């Protein structure tokens, strides 16, 4: 008998009656709590020591430019599907209109212009390999949904404005733009919004560990700084 058949046969011999009590779902379900509270969301993020900026829709480009300037980022990758205007103030030349993430021609990863103090950081639209990402200071993406109660941002890696997983993992600084209508109240609302999304990363603050005396320390292997631009 194959291991598969034997394990399944053991399960059938071992398990009890097939009809356990129905699952009681008396907790706060999806769609019962209204939209997420932006102030609560910002507070939760700050609890994780994420940087938070709350702005109007027409301030996104200048806010991103200011954040990257404050960070001192010189090489910046934007997820290929992010709106071009988000980064137009950051660097006007280096824009590649491709939706193909990792795996392209390495030459495409190089920006078209040369950065200098006046023109701001380089913006790469198609990072082709991990080495490029390792030499990158910052990454800019959108998100799929965010949770106010837990201060969580969820990325859909099949969406072009959020990019493949390595994009938001290898660079040490991640700037994510969250629209107000993407912020939901609780975890069940987010799970509902994520049905059918194949590859996801849930992010709650920067990389952290509690492995030394169970005290939280920020900054291990993931991006050590998370900056969130919330668009009202």
């Amino acid at each position, binding site marked *: 008998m194959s291991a598969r058949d034997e394990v399944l046969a053991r399960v059938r011999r071992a398990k009890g009656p097939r009809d356990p009590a129905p699952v009681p779902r008396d*907790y706060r379900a999806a769609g019962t709590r209204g939209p997420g509270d932006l102030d609560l969301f910002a507070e939760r993020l700050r609890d994780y020591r994420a940087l938070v900026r709350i702005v109007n829709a027409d301030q996104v480009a200048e806010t991103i430019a200011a954040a990257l300037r404050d960070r001192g980022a010189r090489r910046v990758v934007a997820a290929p599907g992010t709106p071009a205007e988000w980064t137009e103030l950051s660097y006007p030349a280096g824009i590649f209109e491709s939706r193909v993430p990792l795996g392209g021609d390495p030459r495409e990863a190089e920006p078209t212009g040369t950065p200098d103090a006046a023109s701001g950081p380089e913006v790469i639209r198609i990072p082709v390999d991990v080495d490029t990402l390792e030499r990158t200071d910052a990454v800019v993406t959108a998100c799929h949904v965010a949770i106010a109660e*837990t201060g969580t941002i969820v990325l859909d890696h099949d969406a072009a404005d959020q990019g493949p997983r390595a994009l938001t993992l290898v660079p040490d600084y991640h700037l994510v733009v969250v629209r107000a209508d993407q912020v939901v109240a609780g975890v069940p609302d987010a799970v509902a919004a994520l049905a059918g999304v194949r590859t996801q990363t849930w992010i709650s603050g920067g*990389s952290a560990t509690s492995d030394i005396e169970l005290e939280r320390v920020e900054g291990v292997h993931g991006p050590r700084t998370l900056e969130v631009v919330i668009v009202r």
Partner: protein
Amino acid sequence: MTFLGMPAGGGNLTGEPFPKAAKNTLANAQMRRNLAKATGTIRTKRANVVAELPDWADLRAAGAAIKDEVLANLDDYLVRFEEALTSRGTHVHWARDADEANRIITGLVQATGTREVIKVKSMATVEIGLNEALADVGVHAVETDLAELIVQLGNDKSSHILVPAIHRNRSEIREVFRREMPGVDPDLTDDPPALAEAAREHLRRKFLTVDVAISGANFGVAETGALVVVESEGNGRMCLTLPRTLISVVGIEKLVPTWQDLEVFLQLLPRSSTGERMNPYTSVWTGPTEGQTSHVVLVDNGRTATLADPDGRAALRCIRCSACLNSCPVYERTGGHAYGSTYPGPIGAVLSPQLTGVDKNPTLPFASSLCGVCYDVCPVAIDIPSMLVHLRERVTESKRTTPESTAMRAMAWAMSDARRWRRLIRLGKFGRVASRHVPLPGWTTARDLPQPPKETFRDWWESR
């Protein structure tokens, strides 16, 4: 004896008997101080974030019921999960026990030609002894979780489900790093951020170059084939993302029926384990991602033996949060090493003996004061105290003859006949003298044996 003759599991699930091992760990004052500090911190954090949710009790009831549903129809969910995985291109393997799982995984690793793999923290791989099996075929497994790395570099053993190095404090960790981490700054301080930075430097190159990763999974969604890894540091994301081959080792009880069910567990788990509203990173992937080759190894290793006991199977609800360890007065004093198993603490005391058969772990069901705090904090409402009592019965049944069972049988024989009983209680008067001179080993070292009365009740009644 395994329950109903179901084959038991092997691997790192047995050690020295608890009373003997606990004697050693109790003598380690440093470790007890470290544990008291760490578990005290986490207990407060957990209590605070649990109190924040008005529907915690409802989530807990739902979590328990979802897991019971999975266990009641586990064969169906396993088949569905396998179909969902294969339809997306993931290779699915089944393992009856630890040896078979290790054979499968070492075979897959050897086929890639690599000499090194990077690992996400995974209890299942510790349980089956995978690192040792890989070493036997010349493959080095690099643990990338900070606590697992501390344990691995220190040639130590895990003592906690969530934080394997919980028995070490910061200065001990610094010593391990200075001694064992190649190229580490000799002036490394014991400041936790500095220690975390040292681990980041040490592992960065591994993440970017090693091409095979091994993970566990916190949850597998039967409906979609999605796998979920819940973590903090980003080492999990690194391992899941960058290598071209990913092998995930999943206990067969890790399934949930639907994607929606995660709305319960992604609230229960982080608040119960690290005491956070949400852990920093949760990765979800459905089938091979971004050109990877993906394998899933489904492991029984005693889980079906556990499933066969109606009074013990709820232990398989466990989502490995470790709230019961952090709350347990016995664990806080003895530490995890005393339990001798990959799974220490209250949940280990009920899970390990069931996975291995109680004859291999006969002391663990007694490693508890039955105070019940483990049940109170369990996010999936496993009634550990009742299960411990049940397993104590099974241990006693499995040992045919003990001094206690002999005494009880003799007593039953005497008490079942009036004349025999009368003769025996008269003899009891002589016991008054005898009990002062005949010590009963074990029993009388910590207690006084009550003295039989001068006159039996029957004698008094007759002479009245």
